[in-house]
């Protein structure tokens, strides 16, 4: 697997990242070598093997430990305290509708 700059640029777009030309070539080398490792998975015969997403699913059927779905109030002051910009108790972002 090799990552040409075009493929990498598309991937960066999906990830909401800008890649400067200098990082692009470095990353394309890095990613190619990482996928050199990862491609070892392709040789494994996994016919009939179910994917394991929760590690303890091998020993028991795992059900998520969910609390009752009751709304809990959030203090608006602390919820907004870390926001880069706020206005009238709301998160402020650049204008999206002209």
């Amino acid at each position, binding site marked *: 697997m090799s990552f040409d700059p075009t493929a990498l640029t598309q*991937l960066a777009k999906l990830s909401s990242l800008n890649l400067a030309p200098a990082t692009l070539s470095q990353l394309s080398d890095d990613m190619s070598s990482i996928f050199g490792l990862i491609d070892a998975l392709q040789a*494994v015969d996994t016919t009939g093997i179910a994917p394991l997403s929760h590690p303890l699913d091998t020993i028991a059927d795992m059900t998520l430990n969910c609390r009752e779905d009751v709304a809990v109030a959030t203090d608006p002051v602390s919820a907004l305290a*870390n926001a880069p910009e706020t206005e009238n108790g709301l998160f402020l972002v650049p204008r999206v509708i002209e």
Partner: protein
Amino acid sequence: MSEAYPTIASLAERIRTKQISATELAEDGLRRVADNAALNAFFPVSRDLTLAEAKAADVRIAAGETSPLLGIPIAHKDIFVTCGWPTTAGSKMLEGYISPFDATVVEKLKAAGVVSLGKLNCDEFAMGSSNENSAFGAVKNPWDRSRIPGGSSGGSAAAVAAGIVPATTGTDTGGSLRQPAAMCGITAIKPTYGRVSRYGMVAFASSLDQAGSMAHTAQDCALLLDAMAGSDERDSTSLNSEKANASIWRAFSANIASKHPLNKGFENLRIGVPKEWMTYAGDLEGTRTDGIHMDVAVAIHHALDVFTNHGATLVDIPLPRTALSIPAYYVIASAEASSNLSRFDGVRYGHRAAEYTDLNSMIFNSRTEGFGHEVKRRILTGAYVLSHGYFDAYYLQAQRVRRLIAEDFQAAFEHCDLIMGPVAPTTAWKIGEKSKNPTAMYLEDIFTLGVSLAGLPGMSIPCGFGLNNMPVGLQIIGNYFDEAKMLADAHRFQQLTDWHQQHPGVKS
């Protein structure tokens, strides 16, 4: 005024007998943080916050309370959010972030009476094996400051090894508690996945992340982990069963009382030794030709001799898919990271770029400036393996291999009680030595990743020294919920050896 490398047990005794107060211990701890500033293990302390916690502990002590952690100074990996101290997760993205709530681990330990000295440096979003990925500089290994402390809980391991605090919290996604513990010559345990709540732990890979404890001794690790563990309705992956909620400390104490180490303390203990680990010569894509290094292998064999000399038997077990744990882990962890880190958009919290033209460029610029190189690499890797056309071939295939790896461990546990082997193929390397080559660094995690993929509990205990007088860690792996047994056998080992009592600068 006090011992250079105190344990929780020794400090608790001095508190109990009124030789020292929590406030005096906190003052002493803050001095130790300042004296060891060159290690870069701690983020800026807050004297007022620490002393307020110490004062509260002293009030409880004066009222006659005798909980074993009351007044004990510790510190948290900066991946746990805290109301008072800023939480960065080692990233510029979260610089200055102050959480409106405490992580469950922090809350539980506070309730147990510990006094926090502050937050510990770590790899950015816990992604790394050397602590060099921290946006705030690498932590230095107290045994040799030109070397890495391991990662990602590098600050947590260095702080204990240097005697700044007797114990710390850390997290382990692919070895991040065990590997730095091994490289700094201390003891650490990562429990069964789900035993400790992840609520308030900055998320990296949610199906792998698990918090644990670090200290000089297995006994101290047991004490701290016991206070951290337990079901939490705020984390849907925290387990809620009789087994998962059983007291680790009570089971540990009962196990210790049942057998004395000198009196054939390991009789009936069958130790599985994966032959792939002791002879491993992985050469994935020609990036490495050696396996476990000779100095590490010698220390591991000597440690196994201690067990067999006191009654244990060794069993050869196969873990044939050990090498595959690397690609499976990097696919799953990167996929989960790319999903988890999509929350950082510069809107509600975290870094916002100063320059942008519209909403999209604000998000793009904020993420580009806020994330470091390794984090971007993993986000891109994750985005790729989750993208249309590759999801099945990479992501689901990695999860199928994950099941095979977990089943290999279950098959091994049919023939043994605990599995033991190295934590890492080498001792701590020089800062900068491997940071240019991401895959060389990934290969260092070969012996710890499988345990994380399977969600099993794993420990590292000091078992000797390798080349350049750097510590070696013995990995102990138990089956699900066997933490108390692992800790008890590690404790017996520590009654028979003094590796855990050797410290940087005072090695005998």
